[in-house]
């Protein structure tokens, strides 16, 4: 847990979950075969990162315990959802994460959504809080100012 404390996106975290599942299967296979392992997944970089450099000294129960704890840790990481009107490229996503990361203490996962109805801007959801900073919200909150003035509509 020391080495993995931040994840850029929810997709990455999902991938991590998948990798952990693969590692669990590989570990189980390793246990079942009595240490006669073939293939590369069981000792890939991720495995090394999660289990640590002393992987070879751990018994099977300790390895599984480490993997289980890491899954629980991943599930406890708060998710920051950002909804935008367009499909952001990876570069812009990283730009946003760098902009946000200094303000958040501890690890977090970012989930990007797309909703063209918001027109522009974004909606943000994090730790039970929700903020709408979209153009749609501005237009909805003050339709009279946006539309009536421009059309010359007056209210009795």
């Amino acid at each position: 847990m020391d080495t993995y404390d931040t994840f850029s996106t929810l997709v990455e975290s999902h991938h991590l979950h998948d990798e952990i599942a693969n590692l669990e299967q590989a570990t189980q296979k390793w246990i079942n075969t009595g240490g006669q392992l073939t293939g590369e997944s069981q000792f890939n970089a991720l495995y090394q990162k999660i289990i640590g450099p002393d992987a070879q000294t751990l018994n099977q129960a300790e390895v599984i315990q480490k993997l289980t704890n890491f899954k629980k840790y991943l599930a406890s990481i708060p998710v920051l959802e950002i909804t935008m009107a367009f499909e952001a490229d990876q570069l812009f996503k990283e730009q946003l994460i760098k902009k946000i990361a200094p303000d958040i203490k501890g690890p977090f996962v970012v989930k990007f959504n797309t909703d063209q109805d918001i027109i522009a801007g974004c909606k943000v959801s994090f730790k039970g809080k929700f903020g709408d900073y979209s153009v749609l919200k501005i237009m909805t909150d003050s339709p009279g100012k946006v539309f009536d003035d421009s059309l010359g509509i007056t209210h009795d």
Partner: protein
Amino acid sequence: MTESSQLLIIIFLVILNLFLIFIYLLEYRRNHKLLGISKKFGDAERLYKKSQESANQLLNQTIAESELIIDRAYKEATMIVTQMRKTTEKIDSKTEAEMQQMVVEGKANLQRQIDSFASDFKATLAQIGQNEVSEVKTMQDKIYQEVLVNLNQLIANLKSQALVLQEQAGSQVQAELKAMQTEVQAYKKQQIEKMNANLYEILLQAARRVLGEGLSLSVQKETVLKAIDEAKRSGMIS
């Protein structure tokens, strides 16, 4: 006393008797004439009373009939107004005109009815007038004039009442029109608000499409970055 003196006395007595007879005859004649006049006056009084009774009867009948006419006209007007209230949305200038016409026709009917009574009254008085007594004719004319004045007064009153009725009907129509205008205004306001809401929705959809497609990627990104700054300022991200 001589024979000549006795003759003179006899002649004097005869002349005196003749004079007395003459006076008596004169008096008799005068009394007879007065009795005739008195009889004629009695007839005149009876005719006068008869004429007056007929006139009063006709007047009462006229008034009663007139009241019925007014009452009927008022009920008809009320019925129209009530019906108009039930179908307020259907009221138009035609309905209002029909109502006005009904009031006018009621007034005309009233006038015709009164004219008919006046004609009957004239006929009755004409029958009384067949009597050759001149005093009766004088009284007949007097009664006729009085009744005529009363009838004219009655007609004037009825006209006034008809006008009042017409004004009442007119004011009711105005009230209905005013209420209808209020309803129309409320409906208009509601429709405008509804249309405005629809218009807003349409414009919103158009704005979504036009703005969404029209904004460049750089503007979209800049807007998101500004939004993130706003979120950070508001304490959303911490």
